[in-house]
């Protein structure tokens, strides 16, 4: 507050930017090499997934581009029949592992982001209502959240998956797989958000600046959106980041368990499931590279989430 006492008043936008540029969050980001690397890794995987149709050597969903003779080619070595060479090798059906990883990451990230969005929107809304209104509504929402939290999200997702599958006609299963997956994972995670948002809301609601807004006579909706919501976003961002890693892992796990996306539409989990069958026979690359990608993805997201939690928590500063 000493640097610009002489300068002309700043525009509100510039003031906000300046406040962000001077913030502890940005400072601690630049100071932490691990986080910078994590962000880079995440960026590379994101780009690869987004641009998969452009950068991948092969379209693994197009049966015409596959050659069964290419099957189980080791990385960087020419195939004994076709003489073709693949950077990361091929799987049992001759699909290029690199291409499958790129396309598979698309599915992992799509499921991850979509389900996090679903659970965040749901959790934030319910949490805000529960925290601000209190009373019976609060009780009802939080009891349901408590009971659901009791069950691990993977179990809840499996249950929802099973139930939805029971409702759908068998021929629709294939097409509905992805939405069902997003819905199952998304629905299983909302209580986390709701609980945190409720807690923060209850604290903020009793803060004097909210009381000041009530004295002016602002309506609850305006108080919630203008005063409470911005303060809730920090913790929500942290949960969402950690939740993204969890959702990606959940998707991989469900696919690994054989209840996720169908094998013709491979995600990282499916690939690992296929690869597991070949570890005893020496074709390690089918398992190794997808597993490594999955680990890099979830680890970097987890690291960023962990760091965000500390950076946004004033108590630890």
């Amino acid at each position, binding site marked *: *507050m*000493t640097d610009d006492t002489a300068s*002309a*008043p*700043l*525009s*509100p936008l*510039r*003031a*906000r930017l300046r*406040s962000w540029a001077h913030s502890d969050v940005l*400072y601690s980001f630049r*100071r932490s090499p691990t986080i910078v690397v994590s962000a880079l890794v995440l960026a590379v995987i994101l780009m690869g997934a987004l641009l998969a149709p452009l950068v991948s050597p092969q379209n693994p969903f197009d049966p015409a581009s596959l050659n069964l003779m290419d099957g189980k080619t080791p990385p960087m070595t020419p195939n004994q029949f076709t003489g073709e060479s693949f950077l990361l090798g091929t799987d049992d059906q001759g699909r290029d592992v690199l291409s499958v990883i790129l396309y598979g990451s698309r599915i992992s990230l799509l499921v991850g982001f979509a389900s996090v969005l679903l659970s965040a929107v749901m959790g934030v809304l319910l949490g805000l209502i529960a925290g601000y209104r209190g009373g019976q509504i609060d009780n009802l929402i939080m009891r349901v959240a408590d009971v659901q939290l009791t069950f691990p999200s993977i179990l809840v997702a499996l249950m929802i998956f099973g139930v939805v599958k029971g409702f759908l006609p068998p021929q629709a299963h294939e097409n509905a797989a992805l939405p069902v997956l997003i819905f199952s994972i998304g629905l299983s995670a909302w209580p986390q958000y709701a609980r945190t948002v409720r807690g923060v809301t209850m604290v903020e609601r009793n*803060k*004097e*600046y909210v*009381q*000041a*807004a*009530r*004295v*002016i*006579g*602002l309506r609850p909706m305006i108080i919630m959106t203008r*005063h409470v919501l*911005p*303060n809730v976003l920090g913790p929500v961002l942290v949960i969402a980041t950690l939740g993204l890693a969890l959702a990606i892992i959940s998707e991989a796990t469900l696919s690994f368990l054989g209840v996720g996306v169908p094998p013709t539409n491979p995600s990282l989990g499916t690939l690992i499931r296929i690869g597991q069958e070949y570890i005893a026979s020496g074709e390690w690359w089918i398992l190794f590279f997808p597993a490594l990608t999955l680990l890099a993805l979830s680890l970097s997201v987890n690291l960023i989430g962990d760091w965000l939690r500390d950076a946004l928590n004033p108590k630890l500063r």
Partner: protein
Amino acid sequence: MSAALKVPSAPQLRVRDLRVEFPTRRGLLTAVDGVSFDVAPGEVLGLVGESGAGKSLTGAALIRLLEPPGRIAGGEIELGGQRIDTLPAEEFRHLRGGRIAMVFQDPLTSLNPLFTIGDQIVETIRIHLDLSPENARKRAVALLEEVGIPAPAERLDAYPHEFSGGMRQRVVIALALAADPAIVIADEPTTALDVSVQAQVIAVLKRLCRERGTSVILITHDMGVIAETADRVAVMYAGRIVEIGPVREVIEAPQHPYTRGLMGAIPSLEGSATRLEQIPGAMPRLDSIPAGCAFNPRCAFATERCVRERPAPMPSGNALVSCFLVADGTLKPHAKAKADSGVHAADVGPAAGASAPLVAVENLTKVFNVSRPWLYRVLQGEKQRFLTAVDGVSFAIPRGHTFALVGESGSGKSTVAKTIVGLVRPTAGRIMFDGTDISSDEAKGADAAIRQRLTMIFQDPYASLNPRMMAAAIVAEPLRAFQPDLSRAEVDDAVAELLGHVRLSPKDGVKFPHEFSGGQRQRIAIARALASKPEFIVCDEPTSALDVSVQAQILNLMRDLQDELGLTYLLISHNLAVVRHMANEIGVLYLGRLVEVAPAHELFSAPRHPYTRMLLAAVPSMDMTDRAAPAVQGEIPNPINPPSGCTFHPRCPLADDRCKRERPPARQLGASQVACFKAEDAVP
């Protein structure tokens, strides 16, 4: 060196050039910078200063409990002639609690909740003294007895949560004295307590240390506590001691310009000038301590030398003062103008009581249901529990006046405030604003017009501003709510004018709350309150979170605004001196009931209710006339189970059977209204 630094006998504690540093991303911060003092055996040295002065860090450094990354970067500490700052950690640990003890501010968090107090005392005793468990226990009982815990043998096996705040602080003192230390460092030991309890705790600490010849370093922001307790006082500013000397001289004839300003800024119970003296600005932050004398930007007398060169402590009279102007005789000791006991400024308010009151609170009652879940009650055979926070309170405030409500915790004063502005719905009673009932259900619908005319200022300027909104947006919020058709430019102009009203510049509007000091934040909160052009402002402890010099600025501002805009205030406070300075009339609350309402001068010169008298006696006074130990007894009972009849009777020296049975009605006695059967018997 002079008598102020060196003490006649060999010092118990000798501190020289103590430096405490904090490495941070903004560079190395020096929080304590070249602090030197001695403490004689049995002496009480007060360490006083505003927040950020480094007084608590000095205390923590002495006992080597600085929070990392804070560290002692230089200096010497000697205890009983032995250098202790160089001792290895394990050896130093035996000094802690053994020869140097510490008492912290908050008794509610100082004790481990999962261990009985007996466990904790016996543990401490046996660490430092070679006693068997049985003998340690005996000693523990004796200690509890000494600090005034009733039935100490039984209470030894109680857990901390079974004690009240005042009793817990007594336990903490017993713990500190468990191994007969040579020196006790008490860091704001009474700040978290109510006035009436504070007096008792200070008395216990003072008596025990005197009996044992224990030295005390009393760290506090409260000059009154220092005046009543300390032998000598060191005044700290920005990590340095600016003045150290015998307490009477420092208070009555302060020498350093900062000390002078500080003393002038403290409102006193004895009545005072219209305006408090105020020091401009605020204490510098640690990353921007000015060169030379740290006080020079705020000092009216500063010369070029003060900006260039840092003054060392120089003897002046019996004190040591770090000021060139004092040293070269430019500034003479400044005898504080004796309070003129004449008419108090606030007593001559504008048009006193001429018209109908602007605000009238009639028989206001608020009951909260604090029952446990129904299942619990059914199984335990418990009844529903109700907390009567406000119990039949009535008062009226004439236009342009300041009415103050004073009371300790649990008195219901904040609930009254919140009920008036509509944050809490009253259970019974009415609130009339300019002839309209604003508490009824019918008033709810059409109240925007009335709402605009009354508003509130809150206690904590750190919590009352949304940290994510810029100052201008905060101030503009009421404008937008009440006058939605204002154009953007009109709002900007109005905000600039409002910021000007509270002596801030328009360019402060684009800053966020965290960029302001506490006093500046409270100005923004006041600007927000003024935005709707109110006639009546409820001020809920507006300065209790602020330092005295900043408090003076805010109180002066509030007075000026009242004169400029003809405002009517309801002031809620626990600080009697602030109330004395600001109010025309005062109501005293005890457990939700108004026990006395009187004009300000009347209340202070002739308090009628025994509780009012006890409260006045308990306030530590800067007026150094040695009073008898205040006759304050007991603590505030749990408001869920208030005593029968007159709720004050268990603590009242005059109470008889009737007081236990009947609730005394309010009655007129001279200019005062008193709810007491015995008010006539109490000769002021």
